[in-house]
Every structure is written in C-alpha cells, then in structure tokens.
C-alpha cells in the first residue's frame, strides 16, 4: 500500500506530471498561435480555425472531409502507422541523447552519428550481392554495420573528452559537419547513385530496390528488376528491406515496418542496462560525480568513451533502420544541412527526462505532432510550421520542468504539513 502511494506521490510521478504539464502548456500555446494567426489571416475562416485546432490536437484520427466539406474523425491506420514509422528513428536518437546525459555528457552529435550509421548501412546493404549471400544476413550485417559506424563516430568526441578534456559539445558539433561532408563525398564517388528510377537525381537506391549488374552487348551496366534480353546477369544486389512483420496489414497504407519493434526493444534493453546492471551503475556514477567515481577506482575515462560509443551506436541504429526501411530515399548531398531527426532527439530526451522508457512515449508524441502538422497543411490553409512552434514551446517548457517539479514538491510539502507533521528522521 505504502509502496503504491510513494509511486504516485514520489519522484517518478512528479517527473511524469511535470512533463505532461509542459505538453499541455505547449499545446495551449500552439492553439493560441493558431487562433491569432487565423484571425489575422483573411484566407482562414472561423470554421478553418476550429478545424485547425482539432487537427493539431487529434489530426492523427482524422479521416478526411465528408461530402459537406467538414472534417471526419476515426481510426486512420495510415496515419497511425506513419506515426509509428516516424517515431522509430526518434526513439533511437532520443535514447542516444538520454544515455549520454546519464553519464553527464551532452550528445549533440546524434546527427553525425546518424549519418555515419545510414552511410555504412547503405553501403553494406547495396554492395553485398544478394545473389550469393542470403538477404537476411545482408540485413543483419547492414544493421550492425550502421550501429558500429555510429559507435565509432561517437567515440571521437568521447576520446577527445576523456584524454584531452575537450568539451564534448564542441567536438560533437565538429564531428557532425565532418560526417556530413564525408558522407557526401563517399556517396558522390560511389556507384550507389540511383540511375534506374531516374525520376529524381541526387538520391541513393532504396534498400528494397533490386539492382542487377549485367553485361549487355559486351558492356557492363546496372539495371533494375527487368533484365533486358540477351543480358548476362553478374550479380543481384539490394532487396534487403526490414520485414514488415504484419504491421503493414494492421496499419494499411503506411510506411511502418518491424524497425519500430527493434527501436522499442532497444529502449527496454537500455532501460535494463542503465538501471539494473553494473555498467549502468558505473556510467551514472561517472555522470553524477566524476571525481567520486575516480576515487572509488571506477575507470572514468573508459566510461566516458564507452558512453559516447553507446550513444553513437544508438544514433547509428536510427540511421540504419531508417535506411533499411526500404521505401526511404536518401538524399546524399547532406553537406549543407544535418538530419533534423538527430536534433529532435535532444527534445525527445529532454521531454522524457532522460528515462529510456519515457523516450518511447515522447518520441511517439513528437511524431504525432508532425503527423498532425501534415494534416493541418493538407486540409486547411495553415502552414505546417505551426507545429514546429508547438514543439519548440514544449521543448522550452521541458527545460522548465525542473521548476515545475520544485513547485510541485513545495505544494506537496505544504499539503503534508497540513495533514500532519512530516515524517521526521528516524531515531
């Protein structure tokens, strides 16, 4: 009985409550913006404002407009599936930031590690011929290859921090741009640029695409699944997308695949590592008080590198799973911008107060907002960036969640005092 009580009134409950308050205030602020924008914009009518408010809150349940032109709501498997699909990399980059944070490190390098991961994954998945190696082995190699690449990339700021005491934030920002340039260069000089679909330029083959290396009329060339007559097939590559595991029939018309389950599984595994194992204990000890850890004989330098490597592996896995989704196209000239999913990971971790399980839910919430934002754009005259405003407010407020928590703590103390003297120090 007392156990249960302390769970609700205890620290965990307070943290959760503070996050929920942040979300509610964020949504409220977003609605205020919606209304203000709607009232000052001539192209948005009163009913559009009401539509916008509903879409921002529950756009994922929207099923389009009926004949009369008013919004209808219900379970929409496509949007739901897409929400899960978008949450998949966010869970992993959020985890990446959260794990590093528990060791006292701010991993702002998730975008770079994500790029390292997606780069390694695409190279492995599209280079190993599936004609001679089973596709599932290629898939595993590509997935772990991406994780390892991310881990190695995360090690760089980790090593700089532990050996030379260089601030990890600065090192991470530099390695981000280094990754962006290196990845652009690597794909630029590769033979993985999509020449078969040919509709758009600047993209890499999808991992689900079947590519055949053939010899036609004595010249070696690359073709798609349709092999021209008289051609000799040298090798077949590609076709190594993550299995759907039946999720596609559950959420028909969406991009979701088994990757979301892997992401959730990784979150649970990292929860166990951080909370139940000696490794998590060591990492947290180094994060809370590096000197005390050092004094107790815990190898703090090793743990800093290890923590960044784990964080990198998680961000790498995000890139890896995204690349292996099969229906995603990778635009390889990334040197001018970094993937936003890496930075959103910071917001996801903040909102989840760095709790690995909380990360699952905050990532789902973030992707829900994105889906709602898309509905807002396609069904009303609003601009989808309004959801970015909401996300920004929520992120700011989750930084305030400490203040909210202190406030909650004070209220609790006052209540306790009224109902009786506080449980004093046991004699």
């Amino acid at each position, binding site marked *: 009985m007392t156990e249960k009580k302390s769970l609700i009134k205890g620290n965990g409950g307070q943290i959760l409550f503070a996050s929920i308050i942040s979300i509610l205030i964020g949504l409220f602020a977003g609605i205020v913006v919606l209304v203000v924008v709607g009232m000052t914009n001539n192209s948005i009518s009163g009913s559009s404002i009401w539509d916008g408010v509903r879409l921002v809150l529950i756009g994922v349940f929207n099923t389009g407009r009926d004949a009369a032109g008013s919004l209808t709501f219900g379970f929409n498997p496509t949007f739901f599936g897409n929400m899960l699909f978008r949450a998949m990399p966010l869970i992993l980059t959020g985890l990446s930031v959260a794990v590093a944070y528990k060791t006292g490190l701010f991993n702002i390098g998730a975008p770079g590690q994500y790029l390292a991961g997606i780069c390694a994954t695409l190279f492995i998945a599209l280079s190993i011929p599936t004609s001679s190696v089973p596709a599932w082995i290629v898939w595993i190699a590509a997935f772990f290859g991406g994780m390892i690449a991310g881990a190695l990339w995360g090690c760089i700021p980790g090593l700089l921090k532990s050996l030379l005491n260089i601030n990890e934030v600065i090192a991470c920002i530099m390695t981000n741009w280094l990754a962006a340039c290196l990845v652009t260069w690597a794909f630029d000089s590769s033979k993985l640029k999509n020449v078969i679909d040919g509709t758009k330029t600047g993209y890499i083959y999808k991992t689900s695409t079947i590519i055949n290396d053939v010899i036609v009329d004595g010249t070696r060339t690359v073709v798609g699944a349709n092999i021209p007559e008289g051609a000799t097939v040298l090798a077949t590559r590609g076709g190594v997308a993550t299995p759907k595991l039946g999720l596609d029939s559950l959420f028909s018309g969406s991009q979701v695949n088994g990757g979301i389950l892997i992401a959730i599984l990784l979150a649970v595994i990292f929860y166990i590592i951080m909370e*139940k194992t000696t490794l998590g204990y060591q990492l947290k000890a180094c994060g809370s008080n590096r000197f005390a850890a050092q004094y107790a004989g815990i190898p703090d330098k090793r743990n800093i590198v290890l923590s960044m490597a784990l964080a990198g592996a998680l961000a790498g896995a995000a890139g890896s799973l995204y690349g292996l989704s099969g229906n995603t196209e990778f635009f390889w000239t990334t040197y001018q911008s970094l993937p936003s999913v890496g930075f959103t990971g910071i917001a996801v971790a903040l909102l989840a107060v760095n709790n690995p399980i909380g990360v699952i839910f905050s990532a789902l919430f973030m992707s829900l907002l994105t889906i709602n934002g898309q509905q807002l754009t396609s069904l009303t005259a609003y601009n989808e960036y309004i959801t970015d405003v909401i996300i920004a407010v929520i992120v700011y407020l989750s930084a305030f969640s400490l203040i909210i928590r202190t406030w909650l703590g004070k209220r609790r103390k006052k209540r306790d005092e009224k109902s009786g003297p506080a449980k004093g120090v046991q004699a």
Partner: protein
Amino acid sequence: MGEKVPESSEYVIEMNHITKIFPGIIANDDITLQLRRGEIHALLGENGAGKSTLMSVLFGLYQPEEGEIRKNGQVVKITSPNDATALHIGMVHQHFKLIDVYTVLDNIILGAEDTKGIFLTRKAARKKIQDLSEKYGLKVDLDAKIEDITVGMQQRVEILKMLYRENEILIFDEPTAVLTPQEIDDLMKIMKGLAAEGKSILFISHKLNEIMEVSDRITVLRKGKYIGTVNTADTNKQELSNMMVGRPVQLVVQKEEARPGETVLEVSHFCVPSKLHNRNAVNDVSFKVHEGEIVCIAGIDGNGQTDFIYGLTGLEKPNSGSVTLCGKDITQNSVKRKSENMSHIPEDRHKHGLILDFTLEQNMVLQRFLEPEFQKWQFIRFGEVRKYAENLIEQFDVRSGQGPVTQVRSMSGGNQQKAIIARELDREKKLIIAVQPTRGLDVGAIEYIHSQLVSQRDKGKAVLLVSLELEEVMSLSDRILVFYEGEIVGELNPKETTVQELGLYMTGAKRQNRKGGEPA
C-alpha cells in the same frame, strides 16, 4: 554616530522567545539570548542546533514566527540585513567576504566610501582605519592586496570592516576554524580588547577550549531548543559538552599505549608536482607507518598534505619516489589496485567521498559493486546491496530519512561522514587513510569517529591521519609528522611536545634536521 544611547537596559541586544519554524522542522524553539554591553557571549551548539538560524534572525534574513528583538530595551524590527547594519550589528562570516584583487583599504571602505563628486577620497578613511588599527591592535598592511596577505590578516580586515562601520555588536561565526595556534591567540587578545572598549561580542563556536578562554557567558542550544546560559567562570568543558550533546561525552580520546608492529606503509623520497607552480607540492617525503599506530600529518592547510594524499592514493601521479604498501611497490598502480590494501576517508566528502544524487545503499557499494557478492552476470543483486547497506547503517548508526534509499544529498554532514566511514572501515584494509575526518562535525560525531579510529588501531590497522585541528592531532595521534611547504620539518611525539612547539614547526619557524628526508 551622534545618537544618544539610552543606558536604561542591562542588555544591548535581547532576543526573547524566538521561534522560527521551517517546513517539517522547528529550527528555533523559544530561544532567549541576552547580550550584555561589553561582554563576550559564546553561542554553543552542535551542527543543526539552530545557531545559524538564530543569527540569521538577528541579521534580518529570516522573520521569526514568535518572539521579539530588543536593542537597548527598545523593541526593534529587523526585516533585512540593512536594518541590522543600521542598528550597528556587524558579522565576520566563516568564509570571508573580501575581494582578492583589491587592497586592504579598498576592501574596508567598500560600500561605505567617501566620495567627492564621482571620485573616491581615501585620505580620511585611511586615517580613521589607522586609528582603529592602533587602538585595537589590529595590525594590517593597508596597501597590500588581499590575495597576498595571510588568513589571519584577512580576518583582521574583516574585523576592521565592522569597526569602520561603527558597529557595536560584533558577531564572530566560527572565527578560529582557519587560523594557526598563534593566530588564534592573537584573535583572543583582540576580542578581549574589543570587549574592554565597550563592544559587545557574540562568538559562535563549538570549540570548547576557546570558549572557555575568551567568553564571559555561554548560551547553549541543542536541536533548536534553548538549554541554558551559564557564566564561564562557573562551568567547565565537560559540563558544557554534556549540555550541548545531551548526554555525557568522552572529551579526551581514550586510548592505550600504541603497540606498533610490522611496517605497513613505507614512503620514500616521494615527490608530487604542484598544479599551481613549477616546484613540487610534495618534496622528498619519507616516513613509515606501522600496524597498531596512528600517525598524524599536521600542518597549516595548503602545505602539501592534500597533494601528498592524492599522490599516495593514485588520484594524482607522483614525480619520483616510491610507496610500498604491505611489502608491495604500489607507486605506479591505478586507484583500484592501490585500494586493495587501503581504505581512504577523503578530505572532501562531497567531491570524492560520495555521489550525492545516489542513494545511501548505492554509495555503500561504490568500490565493491563488481564483487561477486553484489553482482551476478553484471546484474546488480539489489537484495544483497540492500541487506549489506542495512547492516552497515545499523552497525555504524548512520541516520537518515528513509534508510538505504535516502538520497545522500538530503543527509546531514555528520551522517554523510558516518556513511563514508562505515563503507571504508568495513572493507577491512590494512592501511586506513583519514583526511580531516572530523571537519565540520559536532562533538558527538567527533567522539564517535575518534573512537572508531582508535579501535581500528587496536585491531592492528595502520592509521594515517591528516588533520588541521591541533587538538585532534595532539589527542589522537601516536606520532606527529609536521608538513611545511611540502616537506616534513619535524617528527614529534605528542606526549613530549606542546601545542606551541607544534605551531612553531607548522609555521616554519623551527625545523628538525632529517637527513635526506629519512626519519631522524
């Protein structure tokens, strides 16, 4: 000043029936403190007894729930430190509030400057300070920068600051904690001089020797309650400490003659580089510690003791020299390897001793969580950790709000230290290094820690103690090594030496010839 002081009241300050309640705790419960004009009144109590709260009430930082403050018999309202200053109440804080890069003169006049237009005029101030300095025997160099002068002189600057502002009620918050024996003697003289000139002094301390020497009357607080006010002439140390703790306290460390056995630790020609300058912080130090004895490193803070312990325990890399522990050369070993035969109660319990955001039980296994008792397949055995922590908590009487799951940050300093001592002593290592183990603790906790160290010695452990408290050095140790500027300048037997002689070694005025750093 100009105002006429009505001489109607016997007391210059009266705090009558002060009650101050914080959520969940009554910090001051009906406390009365009456300060006579020209007396030195000591406020005595353990940590958490409510001394600081009471002084904060007097200073206007807190508003009491009940009670009144009178000055010269008139009820006054003190709602902010500015009110206190206007009533000529001044305070020397434990940690000085001086600006390092300013001169002494500028520090004294800061906030009460004479100006001509936008320019400072220091001439009149200089004259006034020089007069005060002569009158009360407060020797200071007005043009020296604070960073260049001794701690003792910094304190005199603080006192001059109060006098310059014409304060008549002077509060000294633990003023002797940072001083050498000679400086303490000087301070006592200064305080007596101030009182003789009509200043009224409130002296906060838990050092009984000083209180007995300097004060006229003593008010004792315990756990927020007023215990009593006694005339110093009518009481003694034993009675005072009993009042303070609420039970009879063993003031003198009870111990038998040491019976040193085999050598446990041998340090030879040990040098540790300094972080501040190019010279060695520890230079050519050699000594031995045997089983069954307590060897104490004495010295003024900052003479290489901390660096020496860092070098010894592996937190810092030594330059040269060697350390042999239990017959093995451990000079270059990692912290973990070194700790195989060594327990270490660190100087800074918040920085090195504890992880404040962890729970008590998590802190108890900080060095041991990898041992098979506490993990299986790298999974922490929470049941075993809990059992072990509960056992230690009971054995060493560590008090906390929620037992093993208490966040260490929320515990009192004494209990935090007890937790470290429980953890370190339970590891049953041959050598115990204790660095200022009683710093900031009250009489009851000090008694406990001393008895623990003596019982470890009697079990045949070698104890290496580093202490800045002379009383502790004299009463606890079997041998004293005095550090001065990173070198051992004397090896003394506490039974054959005096505090005064020890002070001379500590300040570098005297040194023994220890050939090549070897024990004489």
